[in-house]
C-alpha cells in the first residue's frame, strides 16, 4: 500500500537525519542564545541604569540612539534580516551558508529582543533597595552587579526561557539559508519534496523541544526565587 510506503519512507528519513538535526538545532539555539545575552544583557541593563533617574545617568542622545537602533533591528523580519546580514556573516564566519553561518543572523536578530527582555526584568528592581545601597555608599557599578542583577535573577531566568524558545523558532527559519536542524528537514523534505509526514514529525519534535525548554526554565525561575517560601 502506498500509505504504508509513505510511513516507512518517512521513518527511514527520520532515522537517518533526525539525530544530527536535533543536535544542530539544540546547539545552534544554545550558542545563539548565549551570544544574544552576551550582547543584549549589558544593553538591557544600560537601558534602565542610563535613564535620567537611573543609577548611571547617560546622555539623553545616547539613550535615544540606543533605543532607535534596538527598535530598528527588532522591526526587520528575521527571514529578510538573514539575507541582509550576509556581508557580516561572511566577514565573521567566511561563508553565508551552513549551520555555523546561521548563528550570526540569529544573534543579530535576537540580541535586541534579549535587550528588551533584560530591560523589563531589571526595571522590576525595588527602588527602595537601590536607595538603601546608595545610602551605604555603593557605586553605580556595584549597584548594578550586586543589587540590580542578583535581585532580578528569577525574572531574568523567566525571560531567558522566552528568549531561548523564540530563538528555537528562528533556527527553523534558518533552514532556508542552509542552516541545519529541524527546520532544514521540514523545509527540504516537506516543502521542496512534498513529504508532509516528515515535515509533520519535525514540527512535533520542535513543539516537544519548546515544551522541554519552557518547562525547565519555569521550574528554574521558581526554584531560584528566594521571595517564594519553600
Amino acid at each position, binding site marked *: 500500500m502506498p500509505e504504508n510506503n509513505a510511513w516507512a519512507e518517512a521513518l527511514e528519513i527520520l532515522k537517518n537525519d533526525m539525530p544530527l538535526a536535533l543536535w544542530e538545532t539544540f546547539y545552534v539555539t544554545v550558542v545563539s542564545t548565549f551570544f544574544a545575552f552576551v550582547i543584549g544583557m549589558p544593553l538591557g541593563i544600560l537601558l534602565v541604569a542610563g535613564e535620567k533617574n537611573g543609577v548611571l545617568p547617560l546622555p539623553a542622545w545616547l539613550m535615544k540612539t540606543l533605543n532607535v537602533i534596538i527598535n530598528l533591528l527588532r522591526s526587520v523580519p528575521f527571514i529578510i534580516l538573514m539575507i541582509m546580514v550576509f556581508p557580516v556573516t561572511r566577514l565573521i564566519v567566511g561563508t553565508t551558508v551552513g549551520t555555523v553561518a546561521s548563528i550570526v543572523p540569529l544573534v543579530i536578530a535576537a540580541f535586541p529582543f534579549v535587550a528588551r527582555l533584560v530591560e523589563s526584568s531589571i526595571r522590576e528592581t525595588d527602588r527602595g*533597595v537601590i*536607595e538603601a545601597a546608595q*545610602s*551605604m*555608599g555603593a557605586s553605580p557599578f556595584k549597584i548594578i552587579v*550586586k543589587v540590580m542583577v542578583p535581585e532580578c*535573577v528569577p525574572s531574568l531566568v523567566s525571560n531567558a526561557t522566552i528568549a531561548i524558545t523564540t530563538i528555537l523558532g528562528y533556527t527553523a527559519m534558518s533552514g532556508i539559508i542552509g542552516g541545519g536542524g529541524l527546520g532544514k528537514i521540514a523545509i527540504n523534505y516537506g516543502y521542496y519534496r512534498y513529504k508532509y509526514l516528515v515535515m509533520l514529525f519535525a514540527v512535533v519534535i520542535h513543539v516537544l523541544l519548546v515544551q522541554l525548554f519552557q518547562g525547565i526554565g519555569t521550574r528554574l525561575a521558581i526554584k531560584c526565587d528566594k521571595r517564594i517560601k519553600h
Partner: protein
Amino acid sequence: MIEIKNISKTFLTAENEVQALKGITLTVNDGEIYGIIGMSGAGKSTLVRCINMLEKPSSGTIVINGKDMTALNEKELRAARSKISMIFQSFNLLMQRNCLKNVCFPLELQGMKKADAVKRAKELLELVGLPDKAKSYPSQLSGGQQQRVAIARALATDPDVLLCDEATSALDPKTTSDILDLITDINRRLGITVIVITHQMSVVERICSRVAILDNGIVAEEGKVTDIFTRPHSDTAKRLVFPDDPGIVTEDEKERLVRAVFDGRTSADSPLIAQMAISQNIIANIRSASTKTISGKLYGSMILALPDDDEIVRRAVEYLNSQNVITEVL
C-alpha cells in the same frame, strides 16, 4: 555634630515647582536621639535624604562632624555615606540574599575579607537578637525581624549616625515598641547619633530627647521633647501633641474648657481633681484624659470642663498651677 543650615529643596515637575523644604536650620548633637516629626508631605523624608545627599538640596549646607556634605564629590560622598547608615519603612533588604549576606553587604562594598565580614555579621545578628536567622531569607521573616536585620546591616560599618526613615511605621504597636527599645539600646551602647523621622508622636515621646516639628517645609517648633509635650506653642505642635482637641468643642455655653498638662512633677497618687473639689469647692468635669504613670509620676494631659465663671476659672487655674500642673484655658 550635624548642622543643617538653611536647607531648601525644590522639585521640578512637568507643570510646576514644588518647594518641599523652605530654609530648614537644625543642629543635632553627638550621641542624642533627635526626632523630626510632621504630617505626610511636611518634607521630613526629603530632609532626611538631604542629610546623606540621596536628595541634593537646592540651597543650604549640611555639615557633619565638620565636613560639608554638599561640597563633596561623588567618591568622597560614597566614603562619607558609609558612616551614615539608614533604615527604612519598608526595610529594603535584598530579597535574594539570606540575612547573613544582607548584613555582609555593606562590608562587601568596603572590600572587607569574606571571613571577617561573616564574623562581624554574625556578631551583629546576635546584637539585634536574631542569631538563629542567619540562613533565613527576608521573605521568611516577620516585619519586625526584617527591620532588625536592616538595623544589623546599618550598624555593620560602625556608623556615626543612624537615620531612621519611618522605621516603625509599618509595624504593629508591640513590634514598634521592641524596635524602639533596640534603637535606644544601640544609641546608649554604641553612642551613635540617631535621627528619627516619624509621623507618630508616641515614637518621639518614647525615645527622643529633642524634636523638630516640620510643617509644610519649615520648622514650626523645635526643642526638648518634654517642653514641647507640655507647652506646645505652634498650631502644628498642638495638633500633634493633643490630637483629640478638635473633637472637644464645647457646645454648652455654661461651661469653660481648661487643658491641664502633667509633666511629671505631680505624683500619680494625689487625687488632684477631687482635692480641688474639696479644698476649693470647684467641681471639674473630666472631658478627656490621656495620662500615664512613669515611675510614680504623672505625665499627659486632660481637658476639664468648668462652670462658665471667670472667677472660678481663675481660681481653678491658680490651684492647678500651685500643684505644678500646666494649664491653658481653651
